[in-house]
């Protein structure tokens, strides 16, 4: 095994100056003949899970929604839980790439590329669920304003249609933003390529970028404005997702706190996912000196802050349920915390509010094992948050004759597992074939920090 390439990742990078070394340390991951054995193991598992997604969607289309546990009164269950969960995960990428860019936070450059990739893959996972939950999967185009045989248009005053536009715009803009950031780095890969195929493919995607300063000028202006446009966009997307619930008349959903509460939760879960992915990635691919501990620590501080905001929202929901004097509202919340789904509620509270408080200790927020365990728990907790909001609000309708208890089927589990398969497959391919760190941006920062020379 001495000839395996990944050994070289633990060698000092090539190049006679700091900038060349930066190029090498990031790009050699995509250029090595073989990735580390850990990548193969992870990829095999991910593709297997992706296969489960394929099987469960195929069976769903063949048989119908009945294969899931959704049953009156719980007509929205894991399908919408998964949708909101994945959309929320995506928010971290845009937050890091746009908001932290506008706030001139230099530590973002180490992680923004991977976080943006994660955004796109998470939104792809999210988009599956509204597409397959509609029961007649050959008619999803009814959500879009396309002329049809009924001469009807979508109902633009419906929050469900706002959702189509919000998530659609979000996916498109995130993809464009990510691609614009990638162009100079793909050009680096093209110029270092040794095979014709690589030179052709990377050459096509870099569109002939040669680093002209006249082009950089327009490029930077476009990037800055994209960041400024993405900032209100990312705040709007989860607000619109929360309108799906907040504009309904159902106790447990009909609350004005939902938009900020959902946005804080989205950033919380997304940051946790970024750290969960980057800790193993920087270990495997030898990027410890580019994605440094101080970057991970800053991420964990944001997780602590947003986790506390989420905890405040949980408390405020209960307070308003009591303060409103509405007996239905009061029942919905007492039922949530002490009813048949109390186990889910308290799982959510412990994972989202209690465990992240350990990040007050520097020893824990700078320990790799500490942050892996807490951030996986945060992701579990945030999935449960959406489950709790959706299922516990629905399962006890106004009339006790319409009370029920939702039990997921094996197909619910398989679809959720499968969506993780899609996410990990795409992320692993990204790690293997594209620069995981925004090299040009890191170089620019390096030059700025060292007075322009070296």
């Amino acid at each position: 095994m001495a000839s395996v390439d990944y050994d070289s990742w633990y060698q000092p990078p090539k190049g006679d100056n700091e900038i060349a070394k930066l190029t090498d340390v990031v790009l050699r991951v995509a250029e090595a003949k073989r990735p580390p054995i850990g990548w193969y193991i992870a990829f095999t598992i991910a593709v297997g899970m992706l296969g489960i997604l394929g099987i469960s969607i195929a069976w769903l289309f063949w048989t119908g929604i009945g294969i899931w546990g959704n049953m009156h009164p719980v007509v929205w269950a894991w399908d919408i839980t998964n949708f909101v969960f994945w959309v929320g995960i995506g928010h971290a990428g845009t937050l890091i790439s746009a908001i932290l860019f506008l706030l001139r936070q230099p530590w973002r450059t180490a992680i923004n590329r991977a976080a943006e990739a994660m955004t796109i893959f998470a939104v792809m996972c999210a988009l599956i669920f509204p597409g397959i939950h509609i029961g007649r999967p050959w008619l999803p185009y009814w959500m879009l304003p396309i002329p049809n045989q009924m001469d009807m248009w979508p109902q633009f005053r419906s929050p469900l249609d706002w959702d189509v536009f919000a998530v659609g715009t979000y996916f498109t803009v995130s993809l464009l933003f990510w691609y614009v950031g990638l162009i100079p780095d793909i050009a680096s890969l093209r110029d270092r390529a040794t095979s014709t195929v690589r030179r052709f493919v990377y050459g096509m995607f870099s569109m002939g970028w040669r680093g002209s300063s006249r082009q950089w000028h327009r490029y930077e202006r476009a990037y800055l404005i994209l960041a400024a446009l993405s900032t209100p966009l990312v705040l709007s997307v989860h607000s619109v997702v929360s309108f799906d619930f907040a504009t309904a008349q159902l106790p447990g959903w009909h609350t004005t706190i939902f938009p900020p509460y959902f946005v804080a939760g989205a950033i919380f879960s997304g940051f946790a996912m970024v750290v969960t992915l980057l800790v193993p990635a920087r270990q495997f691919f030898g990027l410890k000196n580019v994605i440094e501990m101080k970057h991970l620590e800053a991420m964990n501080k944001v997780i602590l802050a947003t986790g506390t905001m989420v905890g405040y929202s949980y408390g405020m929901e209960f307070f308003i349920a009591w303060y409103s004097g509405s007996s239905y509202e009061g029942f919905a919340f007492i039922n949530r915390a002490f009813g048949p789904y109390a186990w889910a509620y308290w799982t959510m509270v412990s994972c989202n509010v209690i465990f992240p408080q350990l990040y007050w200790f520097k020893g824990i927020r700078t320990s790799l094992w500490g942050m892996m365990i807490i951030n996986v728990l945060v992701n579990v907790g945030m999935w449960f948050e959406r489950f709790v909001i959706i299922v516990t609000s629905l399962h006890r309708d106004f009339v006790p004759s319409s009370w029920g208890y939702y039990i997921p089927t094996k197909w619910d589990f398989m679809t959720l597992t499968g969506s993780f398969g899609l996410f990990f497959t795409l992320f692993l391919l990204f790690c293997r074939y594209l620069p995981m760190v925004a090299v040009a941006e890191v170089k620019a920062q390096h030059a700025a920090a060292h007075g322009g020379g070296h």
Partner: protein
Amino acid sequence: MSSEPKPKAHSGPAPLHGLLAEYESPAALMRGAEKVRNAGFRNWDTFTPFPVHGIDGAMGIKPTILPWLILGGGITGCATALGFQWWANGVDYPFLISGKPYWSVAANIPITFELTVLFASITAVFGMLALNKLPMPAHPLDLKERFARATDDRFYVLVQASDPVFDEKDTRSLLETSGAAAVEDVPEDVASEPELPRGILYVLLIVAAASTIPFAMAAYARESKSPLPRHHIVPDMDFQQKFKAQRMNPFFADKRADRPQIEGTIAIGELHEDEHLYAGKLNGVFARTFPPSIHADATTMERGRERFGIYCTPCHGQVGEGDGMVAHRATSLSEGTWVPPSNMTEERIRLMPVGEIFNTVTNGVRNMPPYARQIPAEDRWAIILYVRALQRSRAAELRDLSEQERASLIRGG
């Protein structure tokens, strides 16, 4: 990149495209760029692996018009979204949802915002690419091996031979004395094919032609008829094991899927034996008295006033004169089929037995619907008590007033 050098017949050496100078650091590049700028060149550029801070000033690059294009894109997106939502839901196919207006800005803000951002972002990306003349598949610099480091760690100045100030000797010495690590000729690219290879062209044409087939099939299907039954994509949904209302079921003797109530059964709480309370009748005749269980007191009156406000005022108006909002609207539409609601203070209804009014509320009359399902019997009686009070108030006489009220009337009059 078309950097494969192909031997191709051309006479003589390739003409000069320009001169390339390489620098080792951004600071050296800045000094070189300032020199070239001060020499008055126009057709020149610098190439860097990352955006170098301050190079815009050193080169004299004017601010791009891109932000204005993006503003235009945003305004277009905003106008498109507002205009389309108004036209689609308010004009082309008006959707009446819970009596809300067909068009209101508040409900259309989310989509308007999203499309503003979408159009502006698309303009930002494609505007940037277009202004930068990207994609640019080939460039003479691609043939320079040295230039591959432009995306790694080196900084370059390219002065084009087409510049009016360009002079091969002078420009070379200018670049050499500007702190450059190396200066080289850049010949024009005469090796690469200037046109798309034939094979790729044919493949693109075939793909373009093939991509129209699905649309053609859809168009054909819409215009043609077929004797075959429709496809059942999800049979579980199309054929469900259940009987729908009003269908036949051979299992039962009467062959009906709907099962009638078994004779003599009464649902819990629906045994309405008290004819006076539930039908407003005494021995088959409309009662002139309230049932004994209804107490004509202030509590019942207040309950009646409240229920009247909820159920009756939309048509009959606040004082029961038949001038509610629905009546106003129907009259203004003047469509001819409208039966106006009764004026409950007129003599005919004032003299009507309470039992008959109860019967009207319970079962409806003319186009007034029955309210038995919505209003419990006790509340219906409370409403009638309040109606009686309204009638009395509209036909009051001087002797109905107290001494004090009478005195105040005389003083005021």
